[in-house]
């Protein structure tokens, strides 16, 4: 379990993290979202025990990071931002060093080494020095060192940064495979990633926690949640816009001039799609597309972090 209470970090006058109180339980994959400079990395560094809080407390697996950092760090794996490592070491040497420091030995050590090398496809580069690795391999070596001791708690600062789409998918799969009984905290800029791997999302900006929800709950806050979009092959969009606006449960209708797409926003919780599809068949619209919007994470993110209500 990760528990923080009024966790605060100041740099001079700047408050990087402001009274953050969170609890993360096993089985949760928590995604930290926030603009650059929001305090994501500072928070993760305090949880990992790299920097001390200015005030407040943080504990991992029941061990306080101030009173007993070594015990807390022993049950945690950490991938720092940018996946740093020792450039002059080979991948194998580096992983062995981490395994030594983590106190792995015997059969367990052998099986863990084999496991991370296989999971992260490191076999081809085992004898290469870290400085010669591509960005993707470097990141994977960083992930390998973080999970080598099969930790209860995993803190990953931008784990998929710099990876290509296939590698991103593999890392997401890796996170999901490990998620069952662990605590995983990831920070990311990529909003789909949160939807893909996390079951809990926190949005922070200017050091403050602004939202704490499930990905679905967050998307449901979107203006686009349950909205209906459609576009025509031929016909007057202005006319259908007025027709849709006349429906009883429609709050507003917007027309995107560039794409010619009309979007209708619902007034209440009731779905609009049946009403609009009935209207479309009644009026014989020549439809190119008609679909139900689930909500747009980007829009929720923007509205939360810039302070406008969603």
């Amino acid at each position, binding site marked *: 379990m990760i528990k923080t209470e009024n966790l605060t970090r100041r740099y001079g006058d700047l408050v990087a993290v402001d009274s953050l109180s969170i609890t993360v339980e096993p089985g949760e994959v928590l995604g930290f979202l926030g603009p650059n400079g929001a305090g994501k990395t500072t928070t993760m*560094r305090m949880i*990992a*025990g*790299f*920097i001390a809080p200015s005030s407040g407390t943080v504990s991992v697996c029941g061990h306080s990071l101030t009173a007993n*950092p*070594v*015990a807390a*760090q*022993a049950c*945690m794996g*950490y991938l*720092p*931002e*940018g996946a*740093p*490592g*020792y*450039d*002059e*070491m080979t991948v194998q*040497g580096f992983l062995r*060093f*981490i395994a*030594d*420091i*983590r*106190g792995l030995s015997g059969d367990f050590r052998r099986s863990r080494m084999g496991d991370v090398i296989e999971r992260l496809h490191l076999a081809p580069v085992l004898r290469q020095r870290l400085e010669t690795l591509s960005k993707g391999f470097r990141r994977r070596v960083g992930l390998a*060192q973080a999970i080598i001791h099969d930790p209860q708690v995993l803190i990953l600062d931008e784990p998929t940064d710099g990876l290509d789409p296939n590698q991103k998918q593999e890392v997401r799969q890796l996170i999901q495979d490990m998620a069952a009984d662990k605590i995983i905290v990831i920070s990311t800029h990529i909003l789909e990633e949160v939807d893909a791997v996390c079951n809990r999302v926190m949005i922070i900006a200017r050091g403050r926690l602004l939202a704490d929800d499930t990905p679905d709950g967050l998307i449901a806050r979107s203006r686009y949640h349950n909205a209906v979009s459609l576009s025509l092959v031929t016909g007057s969009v202005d006319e259908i816009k007025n027709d849709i606006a006349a429906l009883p449960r429609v709050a507003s209708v917007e027309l995107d001039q560039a794409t010619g797409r009309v979007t209708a926003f619902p007034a209440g919780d009731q779905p609009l799609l049946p009403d609009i599809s009935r209207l479309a068949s009644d009026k014989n619209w020549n439809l190119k597309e008609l679909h139900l919007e689930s909500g747009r994470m980007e829009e929720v993110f923007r509205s939360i972090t810039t302070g406008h209500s969603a």
Partner: protein
Amino acid sequence: MSQIRIIFKRELAAYFSTPLAFVFIVIFQLLSGAFTFYLGNFFARGQADLASFFSFHPWLYLFLIPAISMRLWAEERSSGSIELLLCLPLTLWQATLGKFLAAWTFSAIALALTFPIWITVNYLGQPDNGAIVTAYLGSLLLAGGFMAIGVCISAATRNQVIAFIITIVVCFLFLLSGFGLVLDVLHGWLPQLIVDTVASFSFLTHFQALSKGVIDLRDIVFFAVLIASWLYASTIVLNLKKAD
């Protein structure tokens, strides 16, 4: 204890994984030989001792030890690996001690490789080998003192060149703190007690006794306390500005 050993192993291997180790060892041998034979007049003195060899060690170390110590923490800082290292389950003290011992051992290896001069002097005459062993010990302690200063200064910066230069300056002040160059600046405006204290910190004074073969427990304690204090200071510096 085992954490210190693991860090030690990694750091020592790091020296030998780059050309630095070989460049350093070769230059150390060349310079110590050149000083001994040309500046120290090893042959012309006509004495079966290594005084002309050891008397140049403080000056050799003044430039060569900072070259070893500068990377210890500054490199970790500039590459960001400090964050990885300090989030592993080990204490700052273990990391610092492991690094120091590795660097010190590396300088000990360079020193040990000067053994041909010992063989030479034994071939040429009958030196007091006990005195030579004591002088080697003194030289090792001197290297350790410089190294501990270097560790602390390396911990304060991410720039290895700055670490190198500042370490030389601080080591130089410690080396000569018993001499006019430093003391004249302090005389006149500081009480005599403080001036005497500063004078007692002179590496050169403590080293000279040992290099002549005189084992004074005070000299050994001086270096031991000095090393411990600078290493302790390193952990404080690291704690204060780990993430900078």
